[in-house]
């Protein structure tokens, strides 16, 4: 059951966040966030809606700008310097709730585009890489279709392949399964579990507590823009410390 023992975690820091604050206008969304993610770690972030968990991981690749504190990703500090931001973004893969595939391009073109334009890889080689990862997510036969012709689960797996094609060192997941039908959730989670077993550093915002138990080596609970509790999954689920966490867990595990 507990597969975490197999998965190595190194001492190298992949994401370091210190004293980070963010406001939307005057609304204080993230308050004094301190978080260190080591290479190979798999972090699950959970919490009620509006708790700032999505904003937190969107700050990691600068889709949202933070106003104070420090974020260091893969050894590069996030500043307003656009060169740094583009460099970090090409090293960090991101998955979205609504997949955000490019509807005017075929599946294959979705996967090769960034390789060709950002990494300057020749087209033939980019296509080879794309097919490799499409095979890995088990949909190589859809390569010439358009995203609109695929099911939600397939689209999310294409999105995973698209990110993997950039050979990212870190993957961020922003509620990757919450827009999917129940039967499609599994196929996406299976793909994510495989990724974890390959040693990918992952930060996942999700309500899939089964996934958290099986894959995560740390679960972070957020509420009102702050980290309320973090622990190993067994401890977190079986022995939550704060009242807020207990209430949350009773609500989502209750049914």
């Amino acid at each position, binding site marked *: 059951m507990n597969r975490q023992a197999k998965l190595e975690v190194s001492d190298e820091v992949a994401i370091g966040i210190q004293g980070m604050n963010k406001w939307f206008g005057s609304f204080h969304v993230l308050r004094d966030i301190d978080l260190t993610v080591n290479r190979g770690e798999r972090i699950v972030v959970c919490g009620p809606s509006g708790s700032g968990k999505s904003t937190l991981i969107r700050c990691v690749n600068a889709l949202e700008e933070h106003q104070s504190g420090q974020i260091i990703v893969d050894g590069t500090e996030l500043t307003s310097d656009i060169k740094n931001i583009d460099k970090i973004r090409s090293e960090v893969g991101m998955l979205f709730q609504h997949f955000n595939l490019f509807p005017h391009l075929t599946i294959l073109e979705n996967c090769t585009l960034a390789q060709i334009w950002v990494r300057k890889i020749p087209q033939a080689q980019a296509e080879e890489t794309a097919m490799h990862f499409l095979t890995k997510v088990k949909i190589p036969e859809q390569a010439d279709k358009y995203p609109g*012709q695929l099911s939600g689960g397939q689209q999310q797996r294409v999105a995973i392949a698209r990110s993997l094609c950039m050979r990212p060192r870190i993957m961020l997941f922003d509620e990757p399964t919450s827009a999917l039908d129940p039967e499609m959730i599994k196929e996406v989670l299976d793909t994510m579990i495989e990724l974890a077993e390959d040693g990918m550093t992952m930060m996942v915002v999700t309500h899939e507590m089964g996934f958290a138990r099986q894959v995560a080596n740390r679960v972070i609970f957020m509420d009102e823009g702050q980290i309320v509790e973090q622990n190993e999954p067994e401890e977190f689920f079986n022995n939550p410390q704060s009242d807020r966490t207990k209430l949350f867990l009773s609500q989502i595990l209750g049914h």
Partner: protein
Amino acid sequence: MAENNASFVRHELIKEQVPPVSQRGVVKWVSENLISSPFNVIMTLLSLWIIYSIIVNSAPWFINGIWDAKSVRECYDILDGVSGACFAVLKERFPQLIYGFKYPSTEYWRPNIAVVLLLAALAPVLFRKLPQQLLGFSAIYPFLAYWLIWGGTPLVAVIAFLGLAFGIYCFRRFSARSFAFGVIIAVIAASFFWVLGGYLSEANETFLALEAVPSRDMGGLMLNLLLGTIACSISIPLGIVLALGRQSNMPIIKWICVIFIEFIRGVPLITLLFVANVILAFFFPPDTSIDLILRVIIMMTFFNSAYIAEVVRGGLAALPTGQYEAANSLGLDYAQSMRLIILPQALKISIPGIVNVSVGMLKDTTLVSIISMFDLVGMIRGPILATSEWNGVYWELFGCAAAIFFVICFSISKYSQWLERQLETSNR
């Protein structure tokens, strides 16, 4: 199948059959669309009667039409009281309607070739399936067309083209360091080339020269097409740039674009044309004479681009923010994400609007008749109707102008619908 027996096995598959007669083909269409209810029947009969009376009343006018006559008097004499059109005016004044009344008649072949080549140059732009090497010809075409229509030595066009190519080469070479640096170097290089080339072409004015035709001698449908084609082809890229500028994070660029768009949209085109005709000359150095066509083209381009900018902005706003985020999260920079992800989708959404504005622009080229340029409508109102021979032949002339514009605009509209279907990827 026995009653009350829930188990059932089909041993033979039912073959595909055609629907019954009343449910297919003409019968179905007629019964659904023409006679589905009493009210529908009445409307059908009424429509048939209206169509019938239009045809019966107008057919003699067309059929009795006179094609050979020297004046409207002669037309009436031949018709001798019978209803009929005097199409002779179209035949006799055909060159004037098409080329205006001053373009040298020995040189009509030049605009003719220019139009044929225009179709060839547009083809690879409009139809992506054609070999894209043809785009090279599209790039040369504007310079070739300038030489054909205005005449003079081809050196002017060649130097303009080479200067532009040199500028683009310099931009490619230097823009790696910084975009602004590349633009500045390119502008300096191209201007330098043009100034030097200007001396060269002035010194060799007769080299391979065609008979020069000054701008004020352009007229007829040729002038409409000239203005419409140039204004549309410049204003679409300019409109896209304005739309992107309006969304820019850089306040100065943003405000320049906003003020430009709002100002131009707030002013009637006629006013801008009068500005082009009279006032714009004050803004140029005293001795330069920028010719009227160029001034009108500048104004029409500005006018059209402001509208296109707003249409494109609508397309940009219609895209989900997820598309911007996905492009960013893959590490694409601003130019790449716009060119590869955002604009292809936003422009696809904007096609109906862009076509709407462009067709409107093409028709608005007839407004130049108000600032005494003799375009198709200007020719009809002025040199043709004002003569004693053809005074009063309104229907034939304006009907002809309407038909010409309708054919052109309807083709553009059909093309845009076809293009939309081609770009449809979601449910193919």
